[in-house]
């Protein structure tokens, strides 16, 4: 069943009069119930902004310019007040990158559980302390923490433990979809691996739909079933995670993959990605990746490539995934494939 259905979403930041930053551009996506999807891209590509839009967390100066976000058949974009708040219980939730640092330093973990259960209680529902303690202990167990953590204050916990607590707090509301926004970026590699493993297990046990936002393609490919690559506000590739390391892809995806290597390998060449992403306050004509792309063709500067079939997924590239709707794209791709156009 399709849980999340998104059409033509645009998010604009308007920090001052006359400045408009188009952070998310014309995003379409559909998520099936129980999917675990990764959303990757460089800083500033709009991945967190999209995650915030999907969970209705955008705050001024950001604004959902237009588009439809349907969560379980409900138009999320039009919700407000009490109705929106109710959706946060058994609906959608977000785990923030800084969530581990957002715990109240003068209250213990149990108080945090009491707080969230009370704030989202249904009318007539009460949460006596004994029940909070029982539920808290159960939730901590889910994130592989000891019930004794309930009595601890945030400063008594390590970064990894605090991040686990913030995940347990989100689980308290039994959401059907959780957006994890860079949940492990601030953590040590070994701790990061352990927290990701827990998130993966939780997702399999509880069956919620998960979106993992990260700049680290390595982390995303290790845990998700499907990955979406974002560049300059658009989704430029959408593939099963398994397929991403082989075959041809969007040149940006390929460039991201070249940033990785196995530290044990005989020879290592780390490429990085030369240049920088475009200024999103200026209009971009054609493909936003064109200035950094080794395969760039004339058409790329003029026409925005739509998402078109590539392999078992989709990519937005005139060369790698020519669309029938774009006149000339097929011919360009054929020319590149036959080697008549210089390729690096």
């Amino acid at each position: 069943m399709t849980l999340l259905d998104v059409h033509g979403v645009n998010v604009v930041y308007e920090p001052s009069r006359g400045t408009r930053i188009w952070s998310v551009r014309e995003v379409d996506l559909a998520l099936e119930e129980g999917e675990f999807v990764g959303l990757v891209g460089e800083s500033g590509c709009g991945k967190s902004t999209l995650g915030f839009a999907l969970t209705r967390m955008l705050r001024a100066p950001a604004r959902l310019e237009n588009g439809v976000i349907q969560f379980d058949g409900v138009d999320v974009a039009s919700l407000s007040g009490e109705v929106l708040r109710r959706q946060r219980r058994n609906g959608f939730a977000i785990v923030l990158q800084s969530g581990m640092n957002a715990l109240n330093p003068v209250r213990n973990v149990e108080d945090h559980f009491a707080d969230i259960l009370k704030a989202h209680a249904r009318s007539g529902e009460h949460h006596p302390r004994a029940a909070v303690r029982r539920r808290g202990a159960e939730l901590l167990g889910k994130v592989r923490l000891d019930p004794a953590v309930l009595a601890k204050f945030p400063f008594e916990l390590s970064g990894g433990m605090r991040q686990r607590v913030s995940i347990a707090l989100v689980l308290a509301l039994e959401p059907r979809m959780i957006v994890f926004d860079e949940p492990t970026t601030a953590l040590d590699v070994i701790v990061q691996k352990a927290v990701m493993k827990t998130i993966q297990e939780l997702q399999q046990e509880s069956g919620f739909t998960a979106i993992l936002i990260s700049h680290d393609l390595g982390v995303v490919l290790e845990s998700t079933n499907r990955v979406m690559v974002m560049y300059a506000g658009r989704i430029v590739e959408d593939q099963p995670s398994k397929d991403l390391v082989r075959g041809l892809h969007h040149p940006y995806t390929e460039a991201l993959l070249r940033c990785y290597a196995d530290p044990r390998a005989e020879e290592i060449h780390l490429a990085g990605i030369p240049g920088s992403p475009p200024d999103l306050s200026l209009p971009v004509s054609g493909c936003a990746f064109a200035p950094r792309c080794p395969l760039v063709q004339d058409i790329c500067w003029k026409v925005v490539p739509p998402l078109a079939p590539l392999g078992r997924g989709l990519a937005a590239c005139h060369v790698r995934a020519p669309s029938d709707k774009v006149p000339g794209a097929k011919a360009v791709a054929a020319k590149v494939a036959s080697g008549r156009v210089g390729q690096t």
Partner: protein
Amino acid sequence: MRQVPDGQRASGKASSVPPVVVDGVSKIYRVRGRGSGRFTAVDNVSFTIPPGSAIGLVGASGSGKSTLAKMITGSERPTSGSIRFGELAVESLHANGLRKYHSRAQMIFQDPYAALNPLHTVAYTVTRPLQNFLNMSAARARDRVHELLETVGLTPPGQYAAKLPHQLSGGQRQRVVVARALACDPELLVADEPVSMLDVSLRAGVLRLLADLRANRGLSLLYITHDLLGARVITDEILVLHKGKVVEQGPTKYVLQNPKHEYTIQLLDAVATPFATDGNGSTR
């Protein structure tokens, strides 16, 4: 990257950099309140940074690697043991001596968002060490700032000099931090997790910058990280630190290909690489 003419020290004098000899260094912190009252952060560590080489100090949070870095740059004093920078006894430096030492040994910090004053322009940030340590005139400092910005790949420098940190990306900020560290032409650069806060796509660029600086300027580099890939790319030798002790040590490539200590293996397993599933260690 092309080599930029170097203000104070002529290039090619690599051997003029003194070795760093860390000998039996320990750091024990007193813990207030409940508990045993003593915490050993660094436990009897010895190693040498030969002139012009790059050494990696690898370990997870709490392994003592940053404490060791602070002792080597003189901002913490070891409880026991000695640190020699050539003839200089780093552990017993005070006020003026420490100040002079800081002009020769510079540190690059992890968080480029926190390491720069948000109210200072790039030019001002990079000028400070020139005026503090080298007493440079404003006019000469301006030229030198432009040279330094070019060295770290912020070109054209005129476009970056007047910018404030919030107008720069993370990678650009880290380059400013590197430019500031290079301003007084140091002989030793201690980089504490310089790329961990950066996007993966930007890491390669900053790592290559550090490798080039070492090659072109002949300075010694101590690279502290939990990122084994970064360590592999720029260091000759690594030390694996676990709970304050060196548990494994040797040529970087050799240690990573033949890890002996369980902790090194654990660190290797934690590296998130898209190609891990290939099983052939290919790097494309």
